[in-house]
Structure formats: C-alpha cells, structure tokens
C-alpha cells in the first residue's frame, strides 16, 4: 500500500502510531513491509491457501465470533443433500460440466429455498447462467454480474440449524472444506513458516471480537488471478467468521489500481453493467422491461426496488421520450449477445469482428496482459481513437511496437487509421473521483488545458452533438435512441460542459425537477429520473455534496462531512452488524450504530444501513418483498436472505467455497488436490496466447508483476516526466541472491526473461527483499517485474505485460499476473531472432503447436 498509495498510507502510519499492529503479506518486501510489524513472504498466487489456513485456524480452535456468526451469517443454513465438496471430488464441486467448463449450482442450494413461489422467480440454474450451447470454453454473458450488486436471489432463508451441528449446515461444510488447510499445508503451498503463520493467526484472532476489530486491505495481488474473486471470498469468510464486517476498524478494503476506478464501475465502463450495478440486458432473455426486472422484483432488501432504479435510469437517459407506453424506452438499451469482455474483444479484433476502438486514458499495448495480442488486435482495426495526455504506445504501436521490430507486423500493411486527441489532465477540468471507500470527491478546475487538449466530458458531449446533427433528419428507427437522448448540458464560460450539471443528473430529479435526496425516493412510474441510483443523494438540497471539505479535526472520526459516500453517505455498509442482535452495541469501545428504543430508531455515528425505524426483533411476513423482507437481525441488507454468505449458493461461477488451485502456470503440483487449476477458469484460445506447461524445467521460476511508487500504471503519465523518470530511470527485475547465483545474474547487469508468449529484457537488482521460498523440499524462486515500462517516453524499455498469459477469472474476466518463466543473463535477441528464441523455448517446453492454450494440467 505504501508503494501504490503513499498518500492513503498515512492513515496506516497513524494507526501504527496509535498502537495498531501492521502485518504485510506479499511476495516481496516493499516499502510497506519496511514499516510493518511483520512481513510474511508468500508465493505469488497461493493466497487462498494462506487465507484458508487462517479460516481453518479459526474454526479448529473455536475462535470465531459465535454470536455474530449464528445471527448474521448463513452458517446455520442447511445445504442440499446432493452437495459434494472439493474434499469429496478431489478438487471439484458437484455440478461441473466438463464440456462447457461451467458449474450448475443446483446442488449448492439451501434446503427449502427452492420452494418459493414468487411470480417469475428465476430458477437457480438459469440464474447462475448455466445455459447450454455455449461455444467451446467461452462463458455466456457474464452471468454473475447480471445479478448486479445484490447478488442472485434465494427465495428464502431455507432451513437453518442455529446449533450449527447439522452435518450439512454451512458451518460444518466450511470446517470440512478447510480441514486440510493446516499450517503445515500452508507451508508447503505458500512457503510460509508455521511460526510466522502462528504469529499472524494469533494477532488476527486476538484482535477480533466484541472489543476489537481488524481490517484487511488488498490490491491486485489478490485480484489479478484466475481465482481472484475467490481469494476475496476467502478473506470475506475469514472476516465474517471473526465478526469484522460492518464494524468500525474492520472490513475488507480494496486498494484500487486507479484513483477513480471505483467510479468506473459505478458509472460503468464495463460491458455488462449499467449505472448502479444494474445488469446490462441480454438479447435473448430480456425482451422487455418486465422480464428484465422480474427476477429481482421479488428479492428481499433494497435490491427489490430494482424497477424504480431501472425506470429512473431510463428516464434520465431519454427524458420525455421515455413513457410507460414505450416501456420507458427500454428497447433503446443495447443488449448483450455473449461475452463482450475486453480480452474477448481483443480476440474479436484479431479475428476481424471488431472494427473500431476508443481508447480513453487506457494503454493496452503496455498496461493489458499479453501485450502482443493487444497490438495484433489494434493492427487489425479499421479505426482507432486514442485520447491521452502523452503519445502512448497504443497510439504508436504501428510504427514502433515490438512486433515491428521482429517483423511480425509491418507498418505499411497495417490498415488501422489512428486518431490521437490530446486530453486534459484531472487538474484541467472539474469533476469527481470515486475511490475505494465509495467516496465521491469533487475536484475543481485549477488551470486551463494547454493547446488543443480537452476534457473527456467535452469530447463526448461534442461527439454526441455532431452525431445527432448528422442524424437529425433521419427517419430510421435505429437512430431514435441517439436522437431521443437528453443531451442538453449547460456550457461554462470556457465552453466546457458543466460537470456539476452532469452530477446533478446522475443524482436524479423528482417530478418537480428538484434534486432528489435519497434513492428511496425513486419511483417506477416515470416521475423520477436518476442517472445512478446508488449516487442518489450526492446532490441533495441542490448542493454538490461531493465537494464538501470539512477537515477531519473539526469532525468525529467518521468524518461524514468530507465528500459524499454512496449510498446515502453511509460510510460503513452493513453497519447494523456493529450492534448485537438485540440492537445494543457489541461493546462500548466499538459502538457505531445501535437501536435507540426510546426514539424507536437506529442511531449512531453513521447513517444506519437499515430500515431506520425497524426494531431489532422484527420478523417479516412470509410473503414480504423488497425492503419489507428484511428482518430485525438481517444486517446484510443487499443479500436476499439478509445474511452474510459464508457459503455462496449462487452467484460465483467457480464454486460456493474458495479452493486453492494453482495458477495456470505453476512450478509445482497442487499439494491439496488432484485438480491442478481452477476448473471453471476462462481460457482465451489463440495462437498468440500459448500457455507455459506447468511444473516444467524449462520455465522453472515464478514471475509476478507489480508497481513502484515512482511510476504510474503503463507509464504514460510518469515516464514522460523528468522528475519522475529520474527517480526510477530504467526498467529492472528483482531477484533473490540465490536465484542470481543459480542463473549467473549480476547486480545491475542485464537479464532476459522469457515465457511462451515473448521475451523481454531488464536490468537486474539482486536483493534480499525477494525471498527464496521453500515449499516442502522444493525451493521456489520468484522474479519480480515492475510493469511500468514501454517503448515511449523518456525512459523506455520492454513491457512485462508481454510475458503474461491470458487466463481469466470466470466471475469478472480479470487476468492472472503470475506465471512461470525462465531468466538468463544478457540482453534479449533483436528482430526476427527474438521470435526464433521464443519459438525455441516453446518447443523445448513442449507447448503443443496445435493447441497452445492447453496447459495440459486438466485431467
């Protein structure tokens, strides 16, 4: 965190100053480790085993926060008889279809939950997206995310055993599932000594419970894996067992890779969701608004009001043209017909199915996994629009990319027409950032952008204006969606569209045209407009709440008057869980939100994440829907049963429980199961994406990519600046002294790192901070690669992302940043020699030329 978020890290240092224990788990010793109380070196990609070990520790020694677990989680829920665990099937759950590579979650359901009779209730199999007829190993359109943030629906809580003794209750299943994740197993999978493991387990469990809470912060070291979502799941299970969710000082915080990336999923740039995590409608399934909302209409909790959110969004888009008669222009929304995720899009580009590309503040030639595939894709487009502040590699790949050098691409033969538009930086325009705390912070414009540089807002507004101008006389139905858009933002003095007006539109307005204050005000009759229901309230009272800057020393520690947090400025979600089932705080020290019996409402330091006047002992009616279905002891209001899901019956593509699988490229066999890799992982089949065979002598080392404080992502904003360039002026790799000896690598010398995709070169830093990890009798060496470099800028170099193989997490389509490699002293071959060099490695490693993406680890 100190490397990538030095400014945010000041709060960790403040906590340390006040006596907090800081534990840092990372393959390398970073600037965070330097100030942490404990650094735990771990083999990259083995985090589920480590976290699972901690879960096992908690369960085996009865260290869970029992009251919390019984009342607030689904530990007591009983699962179907037919459920089989990875312990039973040597690494598989029941319901796996090897043909499609997907799971049918039928056998993972609560007993009694499938009996529900709400009209139009989706059946679980359908809900999980297990449709037949998918092509090869491709998944259908992002089913997990069609559930939006509320997750899929279970009709009811089903059967529960609150003694937690039923052999098929979640609690017992959990125990069995993680029983073999012992400290010794952790050592042989992760390379962490039992002693260190005990230190972590001890510190964590001692600091959890009524009087104390512990927090976990993670970043892409957990998410950039083919088991990324499950890694987070394991942490969630752990924190839930310890009662650390919804409580001050607890929780799990995602440290994002970009300052506003939370905002980029809230107001999404993702293919499968609409603002506020409404799902993008599917062409086959959602012919009309009714079928679109029906699955969620019955849900418990605030997700049950999905119709209001959807209608208000449509009204926000199409204004007066959207009426009850035309389904509020629901037909205007684009539809999914398959998996349009980014890596599949790249495949589509290479195969000629995708013709055009907008790259706005993104540099896939350096920043995306398997750089060669990215560039091959871009080379096959008709047109490419790049908007950025510097001439990034994605705009110049056609003349100076690595494939030009090797001859794999020839400039004269690339037909892509590239448009480069200079972009304004974040100080040259007004707007909001939304960061990991779900906090919106408004920034004012400080200076005018230079020359022709413009903000993205003005670009899109102008683009829309011009397209609408061209279409204005059209009678074609197909053009109505564009022409009916509300597209009337006021302009500021400098000609820039008023960002605050856009924020206000996102906030939403009521029938009187005034800004709304809360998403509970949204209606499904077309009388309200709202560009993003979770942001409703950011412009309450016609005040830009995101612009508030009351200093923390003038507020309590919750500091609710700095910025604005969605939803409803609620700083900790699920904060009902900070009180006991009877509504009193768990302890005086950790009181946060509690029930005030006198007033008949929930009160405290934060906006209660609960129906504010619902007493703790409330039991909802059997057939209650939406928010009415939330019981007084159901803090997890976005889950349809109101409970935290230790076991996930639905919504996770690769299993109801996290399981340790080896990364797709690994130097060792999975010590836990016969099944080596995540069976549901998404492979990207393409000759440019061959996979290293695992446990191979040709690629014996692990490599992982990461960041340095001094540079920013693909380097467009840092390698072009002298002051940052001089701080880290050349690309390098980091290796342990032992690896340096083994491969004859010299400190400050050159090294070539090679995988089946490509080979790159970098200078060598030999450092004790990279640890040789002993896994059983095998020592695993890791090569560390800061990934910031590319061919453009003041400091240039090869891009480590060219090494990465594309295998994706099936839930969120995120790539692995860990793989295997070889490393040799000296600079890499140039030109055609490079391709020959890589080809030679492929041959020797046994990469199958006919099926290069088959790592041959699946039985």
């Amino acid at each position: 965190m100190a490397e990538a978020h030095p400014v945010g890290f000041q709060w960790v240092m403040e906590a340390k100053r006040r006596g907090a224990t800081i534990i840092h788990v990372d393959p390398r010793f970073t600037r965070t480790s330097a100030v942490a109380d404990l650094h735990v070196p771990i083999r990259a990609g083995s985090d589920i085993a480590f976290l699972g070990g901690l879960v096992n520790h908690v369960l085996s020694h009865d260290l869970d926060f029992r009251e919390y677990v019984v009342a607030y989680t689904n530990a007591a829920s009983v699962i179907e008889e037919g459920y089989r665990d990875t312990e039973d099937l040597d690494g598989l759950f029941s319901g796996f279809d090897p043909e499609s590579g997907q799971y049918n979650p039928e056998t993972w359901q609560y007993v009694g939950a499938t009996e529900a009779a709400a009209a139009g209730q989706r059946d679980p199999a359908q809900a999980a997206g297990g449709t037949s007829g998918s092509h090869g190993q491709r998944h259908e359109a992002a089913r997990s995310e069609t559930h939006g943030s509320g997750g899929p629906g279970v009709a009811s809580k089903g059967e529960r055993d609150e003694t937690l003794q039923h052999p098929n209750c979640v609690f017992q299943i959990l125990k069995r599932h993680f029983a073999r994740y012992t400290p010794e197993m952790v050592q042989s999978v992760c390379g962490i000594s039992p002693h260190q493991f005990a230190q972590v387990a001890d510190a964590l469990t001692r600091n959890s419970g009524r009087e104390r809470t512990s927090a976990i912060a993670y970043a892409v070291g957990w998410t950039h894996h083919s088991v990324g979502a499950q890694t987070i799941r394991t942490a969630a299970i752990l924190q839930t067992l310890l009662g650390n969710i919804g409580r001050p000082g607890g929780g799990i915080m995602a440290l994002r890779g970009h300052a506003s990336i939370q905002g980029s999923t809230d107001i999404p740039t993702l293919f499968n969701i609409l603002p506020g995590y409404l799902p993008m409608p599917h062409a086959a399934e959602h012919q009309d608004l009714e079928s679109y909302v029906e699955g969620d209409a019955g849900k418990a909790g605030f997700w049950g009001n999905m119709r209001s959110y959807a209608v208000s969004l449509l009204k926000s888009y199409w204004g007066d043209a959207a009426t009850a008669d035309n389904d509020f222009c629901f037909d205007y929304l684009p539809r999914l017909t398959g998996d349009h995720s980014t890596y599949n899009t790249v495949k589509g580009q290479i195969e000629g199915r995708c013709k055009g590309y907008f790259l706005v503040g993104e540099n896939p030639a350096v920043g995306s996994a398997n750089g060669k595939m990215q560039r091959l894709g871009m080379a096959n487009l008709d047109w490419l629009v790049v908007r950025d502040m510097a001439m990034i590699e994605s705009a110049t790949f056609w003349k100076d990319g690595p494939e030009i050098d090797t001859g794999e691409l020839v400039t004269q033969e690339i037909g892509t027409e590239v448009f480069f538009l200079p972009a304004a930086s974040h100080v040259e325009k007004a707007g909001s950032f939304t960061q990991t705390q779900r906090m919106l912070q408004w920034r004012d414009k400080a200076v005018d952008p230079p020359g022709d540089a413009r903000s993205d807002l003005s670009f899109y507004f102008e683009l829309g204006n011009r397209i609408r101008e061209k279409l204005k006389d059209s009678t074609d139905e197909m053009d109505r969606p564009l022409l009916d858009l509300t597209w009337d933002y006021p302009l500021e003095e400098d000609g820039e569209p008023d960002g605050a007006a856009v924020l206000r539109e996102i906030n939403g307005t009521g029938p009187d045209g005034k800004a709304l204050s809360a998403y509970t005000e949204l209606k499904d009759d077309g009388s309200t407009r709202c560009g993003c229901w979770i942001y409703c309230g950011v412009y309450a009272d016609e005040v830009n709440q995101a612009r508030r800057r009351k200093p923390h020393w003038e507020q309590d520690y919750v500091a609710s008057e700095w910025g604005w947090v969605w939803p409803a400025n609620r700083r900790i979600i699920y904060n009902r869980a900070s009180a006991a089932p009877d509504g009193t705080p768990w302890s005086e020290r950790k009181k946060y939100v509690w029930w005030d019996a006198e007033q008949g409402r929930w009160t405290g330091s934060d906006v209660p994440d609960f129906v504010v006047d619902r007493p703790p002992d409330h039991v909802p009616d059997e057939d209650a829907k939406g928010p009415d279905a939330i019981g007084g002891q159901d803090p997890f209001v976005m889950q349809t049963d109101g409970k935290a899901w230790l076991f996930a019956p639905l919504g996770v593509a690769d299993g109801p429980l996290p399981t340790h699988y080896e990364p797709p490229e690994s130097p060792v066999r999975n010590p836990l199961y016969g099944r080596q890799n995540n069976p549901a992982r998404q492979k990207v089949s393409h000759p440019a994406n061959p996979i290293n065979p695992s446990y191979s002598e040709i690629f014996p080392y692990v490599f992982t990519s990461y960041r340095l404080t001094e540079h920013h992502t693909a380097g467009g904003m840092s390698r072009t600046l002298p002051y940052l360039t001089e701080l880290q002026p050349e690309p390098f790799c980091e290796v342990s002294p032992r690896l340096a000896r083994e491969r004859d690598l010299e400190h400050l010398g050159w090294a070539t790192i090679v995988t089946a995709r490509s080979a790159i070169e970098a200078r060598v830093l030999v450092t004790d901070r990279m640890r040789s990890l002993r896994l059983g009798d095998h020592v695993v060496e890791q090569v560390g690669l800061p990934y910031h470099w590319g061919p453009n800028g003041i400091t240039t170099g090869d891009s480590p992302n060219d090494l990465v193989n594309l295998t994706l997490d099936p839930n969120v389509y995120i790539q692995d940043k860990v793989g295997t490699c070889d490393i040799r002293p000296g600079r890499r071959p140039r030109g055609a020699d490079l391709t020959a060099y890589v080809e030679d490695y492929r041959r020797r490693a046994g990469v199958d030329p006919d099926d290069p993406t088959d790592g041959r680890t699946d039985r």
Partner: protein
Amino acid sequence: MRGEQSMVPEADVQPFESYYGKQIIKTPTWKTPDVPLYLFLGGLAGSSALLAEGAALSGNTTLERFTRLVAAGGAGAGTVCLVHDLGRPERFLNMLRVLKITSPLSVGSFILAPFSALSSAAAASQVTGRLPVLGRLAGVGTALFGPPLVTYTAALISNTAVPAWHTARRELPFVFAGSGAAAAGGLAMLALPVRAGTPAHRMALAGAALEVGAVATMEHRLGMVAEPYQQGGSGRLMRIARGCTVAAAALTVVGRRSRLLRAVAGASYVAGSVVTRFGIFEAGLASARDPKYTVVPQRERLRARQEARAEPA
C-alpha cells in the same frame, strides 16, 4: 544487495560503514591545473617580493629587477588562474563585495588585489625607470603583502571539510612558506648569475628545508589521513616533489660555483614546488572521495569523547 560495507582491514583500517561506499563530503570543485598552479604562483610571487625587497635594500639590482618582474608576473598569472577557475568568471569582482575573516578566500582577495597592484607598479617603475620613489614605496608594500600571499592559501584549503587539508591545517602554512621560498629562490638561481643569485640560493635552501620538514611533520601527525600523501597518484606526486626538492638542495650545496649545476638546482626547486602543490591538491581530492577518511577519524573522535566521559573524574 548489501547496504553496509564491511571493510576487511587493509593495513590497520578499522571496519566502518558507509552509504554504498559513496563519499560523504563533496569533491572540491576547484579545477586542476588552475588552483594548484595558483598556489604555486602565489607562493612564487609573494616570496619573490621578499627577495626583491631584500635585493633593493642590499643594492642587488640584478636580483631586484628579476624578482620584481616575477612578483608582478606571478600575481598576474595567478589572478588569471583564479578567474578562470570560477563558475561565473565574469563575476570575479564580486569577491571584493565583502571582507570576511572567516573566509580565507575573502581575505585572500584583499591580499592578492593590493599585491597585484603594488607589484605591477613596482615592476613597471623598475623597468621604465619612472617614478622611482613611488616605485620603491610600491615595492615595500609588495613585500608587506608578500608573505601573507604565500601562506594564506594554506588557510584557504584548510578551512574546508576535506580531511587531508583540514587535519593538516597547522603544518600546511609552513609547507607553503617553504615551498614559496624554494620556488622564488630556485627561479632566481635558474635565471641569474651566481653572485647576484646568492641570496636566492640561500632562500631556496632554507625554504626547501622548511618545506620538507613541515611535510614530514604533517605526515607523521596525520595518522590515517596521511595516506593520500603517501599512497596512490597523490602520494606519487608528493614523492616526486620531495625528490626534486632534496636533489635541488644537494645540488645547491655541491654545485656552489657551477652555473650549470645551480641552474639545474634552481629548476629542480621550482619543479619541486610546483609538484608539491599538485600533490597536496590531489591528496585533498582523494581524501574527499573515499568516505573512510571522513568516517573513521570522526568515529575515533566520538569514541574518545565517550571514553573520556565514562572515566571517573
């Protein structure tokens, strides 16, 4: 990647730590040959001024004429060296904005400037024969500023953090005095007939003795910081210098009547003086570049103070 540098002792250097072996203090930015040449020229000019005054008082016109010219010429050439050494030579007059006695360079500017002016006046008067009284007075003035010109530069380099110079601050003035005397005397020996040059050869011999003696004392007293004067390139220069100076002295004694031998001796004195300055200059640079010369003596000092504090009163 080791941050510490544990030195296995060569000779008797204790182990010490440093930051990747990098020097702590900066290497002096003074250029070579500019500054060592100036040290030499200042010594030559200042001592020549003394010889000139003595010659004037004793009616040795040949000697007087020669040494007056040397004084003026040396000062002029020295000034050129100094100005050339500046980062902003066009601003050399800024030296005369203030006079700070904490800065030998400041004080030195106010020695060199009058010396240059007076020595030029005296030499001009001597050569043209004009204004003899004023010229004579100028000559006296030159002689007054002469010795300070010769020795102040020792304070200049000593008043730095450079270990080889600062630690040698007591001996260096005497080294410079002797070296200046040897240079002035030697040059006169080289250029002039025996009889006229007699005071010169005495001056040179005495100067040589002073120089060699002071250097020996210095090296003896400096402890580990004497190393740059004895080892490496700078050590070699010092040895050559000593060789030249000693040889010159020997030749002076032996070749009392031989014009040739005295000329050779004279040249050798001059050479010795020049090389001494370069040797001392390089020794300073070497002592700045290696952190051990900063760290080890300071650690010693700290340890001694701690022990002194620990001892019962």
